[in-house]
């Protein structure tokens, strides 16, 4: 039987693009869902996200039982989890964007504004940039992917960082631990590189 991939619908702007890309990457059992029960029974979970940290966190928390279902399925049952852009940033302990907001706290760290070291470094970090794996990870290959963000994941533990990129300063490109991976870039907007990444996630056996 085909796996069920729960794509969490909490109003994120890139929801449909991620859905389309998962299908293009070969997924057959994608369920776009706002139901905790579906998430609690899924074989894989994908959390999209764009915009502000606090707004995304609030929208996710507004779905009764969703964060508890994610906690159970990802942290206890250890099914593969992918967070994209703000969906990745939400893994942090907290985010400092229009005030301080609590994150999921699955991966230690804080989400801060990127501080440009000089005027020629424009914020947001917008465009294609490197994905440079820091250590061997099944999902991350060196390449170019599309980034679109003004905030970045300041990791508490360097060991959690799977890949970096550079925009005036080194930035986390991918982070995670065990069955959890989060990417700052947009695989759904990164043409062949992005689809190949999603295909690897769909086949990933952490």
């Amino acid at each position, binding site marked *: 039987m085909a796996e069920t991939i729960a794509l969490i619908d909490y109003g994120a702007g890139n929801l*449909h*693009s991620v859905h389309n890309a998962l299908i293009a990457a070969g997924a057959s059992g994608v369920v776009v869902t706002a139901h905790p029960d579906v998430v609690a029974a899924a074989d894989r979970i994908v959390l999209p996200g764009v915009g502000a940290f606090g707004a995304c966190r609030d929208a996710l928390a507004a779905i009764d039982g969703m964060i508890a279902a994610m906690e159970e399925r990802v942290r206890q049952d250890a099914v593969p989890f992918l967070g994209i852009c703000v969906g990745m940033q939400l893994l942090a302990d907290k985010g400092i964007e229009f005030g301080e907001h609590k994150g999921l706290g699955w991966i230690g760290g804080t989400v801060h504004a990127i501080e440009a070291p000089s005027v020629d470094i424009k914020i*947001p970090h917008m465009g294609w940039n490197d994905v440079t794996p820091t250590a061997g990870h099944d999902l991350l290959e060196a390449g*170019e992917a599309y980034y679109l963000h003004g905030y970045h994941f300041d990791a508490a533990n360097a060991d959690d960082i799977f890949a970096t990129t550079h925009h005036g300063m080194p930035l986390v490109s991918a982070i995670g631990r065990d069955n959890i991976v989060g990417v700052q870039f947009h695989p759904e907007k990164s043409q062949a590189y992005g689809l190949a990444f999603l295909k690897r996630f769909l086949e990933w056996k952490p």
Partner: protein
Amino acid sequence: MSVRIRVIPCLDVADGRVVKGVNFVDLQDAGDPVEQARAYDAAGADELCFLDIGASHEKRDTIIDVVRRTAEVCFMPVTVGGGVRTADDARALLMAGADKVAVNSAAVTRPEVVSDIAGRFGSQCMVASIDARKVEEGRWEIFTHGGRTSTGIDALDHAVRMAELGAGELLVTSMDRDGTRDGYDLALTRAIADAVSIPVVASGGVGNLDHMVDGVIKGGANAVLAASIFHFGQHSIAEAHDALRAAGLPARHNS
């Protein structure tokens, strides 16, 4: 390397059909924006821009349908401009699969629409489109309605204000150069790029690849937008990337 200079083909769309577009690729329906978007996606465009030049209110849904169908088959970032007047207009495009929306006239008459959109959906998706005309040496004014209507607003002041209100990018079009193929207005692009801390897209007037290189090196742009040199097959996206790299700029490798 650092973040790549983006090469952005722009397709003019009216009532769901391409007005000015590719005439060289083997397309089943050359008037279909989705077919053209696919061609550019396959060619390795860094982003795509749809400009809805029809944008009459009753035909508004046609561009949303174009965006939705494009997002099903193209996996590159898409900006949509033309007729975006409210945060709800922006929402409809974003939910259909657009990554950014460009706001033009509405941001002149009602600048708070920029903070509305940035506040609800994030600065990263809010592009302020600036159509400017030179009025004297070193001074440009904002024009609306396709460059015909003067507003008396100083282009630099407007650009800074757009950034302050939360725009995440500026699309700067020289109405003097648009369609001339004489190159971007580099002084305009440079003046705005130096005045803001957000990325700037140069637009209007590209006639050859050197113009794109100049837009970055002399104009200070982070991205270069062009229409006819790609649509009419004069140059490919890969050639544009090669020209940027040959000039020592970071550009993507088309694999």
